[in-house]
């Protein structure tokens, strides 16, 4: 008859142990997220109101709302995306679809990896030197957004390249055999099937851009500026810097205020993520293979 040997039993035991261990890790992973959200909700939840979102800070930033910072962050993220997504997608398409495997390509790939590894404070100083001073944009939304764009380019490039490479090569060959040029192939077949993967990169970029503080500190974000920006050459407040300021620089801030600001910032990011995830799910449903 067939009976489990000692070896079988040991294998089964190991298998159960590994499964339980990995489950534990996964649960631990979720804990910080839930804790952060929980603490913010408990301590800052009372701050939330339409007034908080749509009024300016008052009394030396110890009261009032977050409107200028909220609007500023939206500007910064939007312009950073406008700058980095076209460049990043174009670069990724080139690297994935056109670039021959030569020294130049390898150097560029290495540069992208290194760009991802540059600390944000270094990006900040680069942005100050390049956009604020050299290009003469001054400390402005434009300079800050471009700094953020450069910082997040690697995310877009890597995500896009992976999305492109996930499209089976046979599709490309079928198109080429019909006499399609590389570009026709990319435009009609490859990109439409890579869109959901590209969006993943954009989601990551949005989250990171909205939360970054250092790169915008020197390049365009203002300490306190209770008006809405009129153009991209204005300075602006931003949620991330505003949070830093009221949490560390301003005396006599009510305890709930920074929590409220943090909650709004996280809420913004989550809302944008939810939007992109919804879009991505919708695109996936139309997915073709």
């Amino acid at each position, binding site marked *: 008859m067939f009976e489990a040997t000692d070896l079988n039993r040991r294998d089964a035991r190991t298998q159960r142990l590994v499964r339980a261990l990995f489950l534990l890790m996964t649960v631990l992973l979720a804990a910080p997220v839930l804790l952060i959200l929980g603490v913010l909700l408990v301590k800052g939840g009372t701050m939330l109101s339409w007034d908080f979102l749509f009024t300016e800070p008052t009394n030396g930033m110890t009261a009032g709302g977050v409107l200028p910072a909220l609007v500023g962050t939206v500007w910064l993220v939007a312009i950073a995306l406008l700058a980095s997504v076209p460049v990043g997608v174009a670069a990724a398409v080139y690297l994935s679809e056109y670039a021959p495997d030569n020294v130049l390509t390898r150097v560029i790939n290495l540069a992208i990896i290194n760009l991802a590894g540059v600390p944000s404070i270094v990006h900040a100083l680069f942005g100050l030197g390049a956009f604020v001073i050299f290009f003469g944009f001054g400390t402005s939304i434009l300079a800050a957004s471009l700094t953020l764009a450069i910082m997040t380019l690697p995310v877009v490039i890597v995500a896009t390249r992976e999305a492109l490479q996930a499209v089976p090569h046979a599709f490309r060959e079928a198109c080429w*055999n019909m006499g399609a040029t590389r570009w026709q192939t990319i435009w009609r077949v490859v990109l439409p099937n890579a869109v959901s993967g590209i969006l993943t990169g954009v989601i990551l970029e949005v989250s990171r851009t909205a939360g970054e503080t250092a790169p915008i500190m020197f390049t365009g974000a203002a300490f306190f500026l209770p008006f809405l920006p009129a153009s991209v050459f204005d300075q602006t407040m931003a949620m991330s810097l505003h949070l830093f300021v009221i949490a560390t620089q301003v005396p006599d801030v009510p305890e709930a205020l920074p929590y409220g600001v943090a909650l709004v910032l996280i809420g913004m990011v989550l809302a944008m993520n939810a939007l992109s995830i919804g879009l991505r799910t919708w695109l996936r449903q139309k997915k073709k293979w």
Partner: protein
Amino acid sequence: MSDAEIAVRDLTIRYGQHVALKGASFEVRPHEIFGIIGPANSGKTSFLKVLNRMDTFTAGMHFEGQVEVGGRDVRAWRNLYALRRQIGVVFPLPVGLPLSVYDNVAFAPRLAGVRAKADLNVIVEGCLRRAALWDEVKDRLNALGSLLSGGQQQRLTIARALSQKPRILLLDEFSIAVDPVTTMRIEAVLSELKAEMTIVLVTNLVQQARRLADRTAFFLMGECVTVAPTEQFFLRDADLDPRARDYVEGRFG
């Protein structure tokens, strides 16, 4: 013979140092089905790739010698896309593009500049009919081509190749992923298409070459061993290279 549709002289194909085909010379005549048989790694597929210059998309692939398609050296084409649009290709594994059935067949006509919906409708229906697929998909032209069954997808790729209005149709072991019934249907289609175009049929199935091909070439390990009218391969008393005879009689390969 200057009226050859495809004329190959001293064709050698290399991948880096590896020689895939050496010194092949033969001709394919207009409106014939030209079979190419032989075991794997004989250079059959590589030869097809030279015909429509897919070597430009294959790293390390080079060829020497002369290959003329319709009397013109394939290397003399400056616009390779125009060359490829005259040559339809069907792969071993069907590749339904991730587009609707309709868009799959309308892809090549659109590349060729056909825009009017009415014209496209005519082309799509005509090609699907000729590929013996129309009856099965006419009610779901908007379904994804890649969701059809394997046999249907292979007929879809044939319809797609026909939509190019090719003067030459290349088939690379098209029946590998297709059931026998579908294979027979496609074979019937090919016999009809012969009137309109020249067909090069690479196949692992000796009997398929026997059923379809007017003339057949036997490739072995990068060498074009024999080119002869297909029935010659099966005549006991024909003057045939012993390697070719061994192959068609199933003693190896």
